[in-house]
Each structure stands twice: as structure tokens, then as C-alpha cells.
């Protein structure tokens, strides 16, 4: 991988340039769309959950986390099938295509998170010092995005309905995670199963460091790490098996 670092960089930068140049407002839009989504959800649900501490800010942080997870995995899913030339006409290790796509999603997401800082300052009156752990949390989230990306990118070459299936799963996931509502409304008998969702733990971690100003619990960190490494190992394994016939399928 290290040997191909310049190629990875060039591909990731090209992807970012494509993403931002194709819309007239570029980077600006990529920030506006999650903020608008947060605004709409806040407007709809403020009567129900508006009494919770820092509901608006929690909402924005939750949406940003979900957005990196969903756009990152969707972009990765497409990263092989959308570049048939780089698979069938030249040899480069194929996982580089997934990695550079995941990397460009990571960079987009980092840029989006920057706007949270002034919003945090406006809503809280201060910025928690634990925000400095934010890049670390993002690296933790990158791991499953890349792992799932490898799994879906390779499977998508063979099964072209995966994108639709994954989009449905993602839309379920947004309601199965504490993004719109607080964890406290989940009934006690369901909570055990509810907490199996790794995205829930990611959101808890981000809220701890970005809103509450506390260090996240070790249990959440452990679950998230196991999930990340697990998806990476599975994704890598499946990808290596399936990539042998990529050039024939594309």
C-alpha cells in the first residue's frame, strides 16, 4: 500500500475535485445539505425532544456521523464498478480504488465537521476541550467504512442490486440509531439489542467528545474497535477472493 501512496493521493484528490467541481457551489453544498437536514429534523421533532439537553447540537453531530458512514460506504460500493478501465486495462492493486475513495470521503467529512465548531460555540457558549480527540474518533469510524466498503465494492461487481439493498439498510439504520431521538426513549427490554448497533456507540462517542466534553466510555470504544477491525478483516478476505474475476465481470 505504501508503495502506491502517490497513486492513492492522486486518485483521492481527483475524486474530491470531481465531487466539488460538478456542483456550482462545491464545498459549500456539502456543508449545507447536512445542516439543512438537521434544521428540518429539528423543526419537526423539537416539540417532542426539544427539552433534551443540547438537542440541536446532538442532532447535527449525529447526522454528520451517519452521513460519513452512509456516503462513505455508498461511494466505496461504487468505487470498482464505476472505474472499469482501471480494472480491465491496467494493473493496480484493486483495493487501492476502494481505499482512495474512502479516503476522499474521510477528507470531505473532516471538512464538513469544521463547521460544527462555530455552531457548537454559538449553542454552548464554549467549545469542549475534548474536541481534540475528534480526529481520533474519525479514524475509528474510517475503519468500518473502509471494511464495509471493501465488502460491498467487490460484491457489487457481481450483484448489481446491492446498492438498492444497502440504501434500504441505511435508511433503517438512521432510525435504529439515536440520531433523531435520545437513547433514553428506547424501552428497557429492547435496550440490550439496541446497543448492539455499532453506529449507536459511534454517535455516543462523538457526542461525548464534541458536546458533553467528557471522555467516552471504554465499553463503547471497545465495541467500536472490534467492529472496525472485524469488518476490515471480513471485507479484506471477501475482496481478495472476489477480485480475481473482476476483469471478466466488468
Amino acid at each position: 500500500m505504501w508503495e502506491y501512496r502517490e497513486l492513492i493521493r492522486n486518485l483521492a484528490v481527483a475524486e474530491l475535485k470531481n465531487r466539488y467541481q460538478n456542483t456550482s457551489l462545491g464545498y459549500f453544498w456539502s456543508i449545507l445539505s447536512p445542516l439543512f437536514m438537521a434544521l428540518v429534523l429539528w423543526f419537526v421533532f423539537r416539540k417532542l425532544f426539544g427539552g433534551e439537553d443540547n438537542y440541536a447540537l446532538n442532532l447535527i453531530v449525529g447526522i454528520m456521523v451517519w452521513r460519513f458512514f452512509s456516503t462513505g460506504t455508498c461511494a466505496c460500493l461504487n468505487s470498482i464498478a464505476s472505474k472499469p478501465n482501471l480494472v480491465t486495462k491496467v494493473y493496480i492493486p484493486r483495493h487501492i480504488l476502494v481505499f482512495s475513495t474512502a479516503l476522499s470521503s474521510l477528507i470531505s467529512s473532516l471538512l464538513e465537521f469544521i463547521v460544527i465548531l462555530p455552531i457548537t460555540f454559538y449553542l454552548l457558549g464554549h467549545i469542549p476541550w475534548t474536541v481534540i480527540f475528534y480526529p481520533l474518533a474519525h479514524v475509528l469510524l474510517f475503519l468500518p467504512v473502509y471494511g464495509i466498503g471493501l465488502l460491498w465494492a467487490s460484491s457489487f461487481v457481481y450483484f448489481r442490486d446491492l446498492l438498492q439493498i444497502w440504501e434500504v439498510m441505511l435508511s433503517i439504520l438512521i432510525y435504529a440509531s439515536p440520531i433523531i431521538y435520545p437513547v433514553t426513549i428506547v424501552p428497557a427490554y429492547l435496550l440490550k439489542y439496541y446497543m448492539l448497533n455499532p453506529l449507536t456507540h459511534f454517535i455516543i462517542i462523538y457526542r461525548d467528545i464534541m458536546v458533553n466534553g467528557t471522555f467516552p466510555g471504554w465499553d463503547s470504544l471497545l465495541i467500536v474497535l472490534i467492529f472496525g477491525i472485524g469488518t476490515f478483516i471480513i471485507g479484506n478476505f471477501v475482496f481478495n477472493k472476489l477480485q480475481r474475476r473482476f476483469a471478466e465481470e466488468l
Partner: protein
Amino acid sequence: MAAINIDSVSKSFRLPHEKKRTLFHNLIGIVKRQMSYEEFWALKNISFEVKKGETFGIIGKNGSGKSTLLKILAKVLYPDSGTLAMNGRVASFLELGVGFQPELSAEENVYIYGSILGLTRKEIRQKYDQIFEFAELENFKNMKLKNFSSGMYLRLAFACAIHANPDTMLIDEVFAVGDTAFQKKCSDKIKEFQNQGRTIVFVSHSMDSVKQICQRTLLLNKGQMVMLGPTEDVVKEYLKVT
């Protein structure tokens, strides 16, 4: 030391009875227990060695397995059996301008294509002016690639390719494009590569260009080796068969 050593390589393709492209169709296929594909052997038991600095031709009729063999050498396809050993930096030109992005400028594309061909950023920067000079596109560095004519596109891709500096080049008739002047430039460049002691594997339908540049040639038919030897003899055999 051999530049390429390929030993009893075989490759089969799966020819599906009906193309199943979705998870849904595949699940149905499993339930019905259908045999979903047939095997077709595109290459059978191919073994040869290409010496360092040699120019090696591969000829044969359409569907004889030439391109499949070249793709295996390029590592785009994996052989089902047999082994393949390549020494040194390999650049494959199955198509020119792979990875070019129409929305980006010529300059950015030179860096992307260069890194796909295995050049480092530093090497590209050093060769940057030469590339644009060779392509005769010095005034279009900042133009988006989508506004290039097909000729300009090709010249830029070719200029990048010949500056890639590989030890071994795999060429699949890509250089048989463009006008006469461009083709002259290409064949001059290939001769220069030969003089520099680089290894070239060349796939072509044009017997004239094969005779012109290849020292040894392999004749394929239906995925099997028919003859391997000095180009003159192999081309004679090929013309006799067809």
C-alpha cells in the same frame, strides 16, 4: 535473467447461460439448482520465456487468445493454473489514457496517469515539460480534458506512456492509431526502446509491424501454442494457415 517466465498457464472463462447480475437472481438460481455457467478454455498450457531486452510478438486469428494472454501478463486476469514470473517494472498499454478524467485539466491528468503507470511525483515533475513538448500541447496545460479533440487526447496519453520508463512494456495494438506522422513517431520510439535494452511484448494483427520489430514470435490458435520461433518462420506459418 528472463524478463518474463510463464509456465503451463491455462485460463478458462465462465460463459453464463443467462447473465445473472443481481443477488435476487442468484438466490433463485441456487433454489432451482441450475448450472449457471459453462467453461470455455481461452488459453491452454502456455509456456515460454522472454529474455531481457527482447521484443516478443504474439500473433493469431481473432479469438485465438492473444489479448487474454497479454492481460494475464499485465496481471489484469488471473490464470486458473500455471505460474507467471515478471522481473522489473512492467507497464501495460492495453489502452492509452486509462484513468484520464475529463473534468480535470491536462496537467492534473498527467499526474494521475503518470502515477498509474508507476511514476513517482518527483519523476513526473522532472519529465513534465518533455511530456507536453512531445505531445505538442504546451499551450493547453490548464485546459480541461473534455475540451480536447481526440487527437490531442491521444497525443497526451502517448506522451505520458513513453515517458513511463518501464523495464518491460506490454503493447496491444494501441499504437496503431492516429495519422501517419503519429505512427512514424511511435515506431521511432519503439526502436529507441529496443536500443535501450527494454523488453517489449507486442500483440498485433499487422504482420508487417511484427516482422519489423519482433525477434521471436508466438503463434496462437484456439488458445494453444502452435509455433514459437524466429519471427520470419512463424509469420510464414501463420499466413499458410489462414
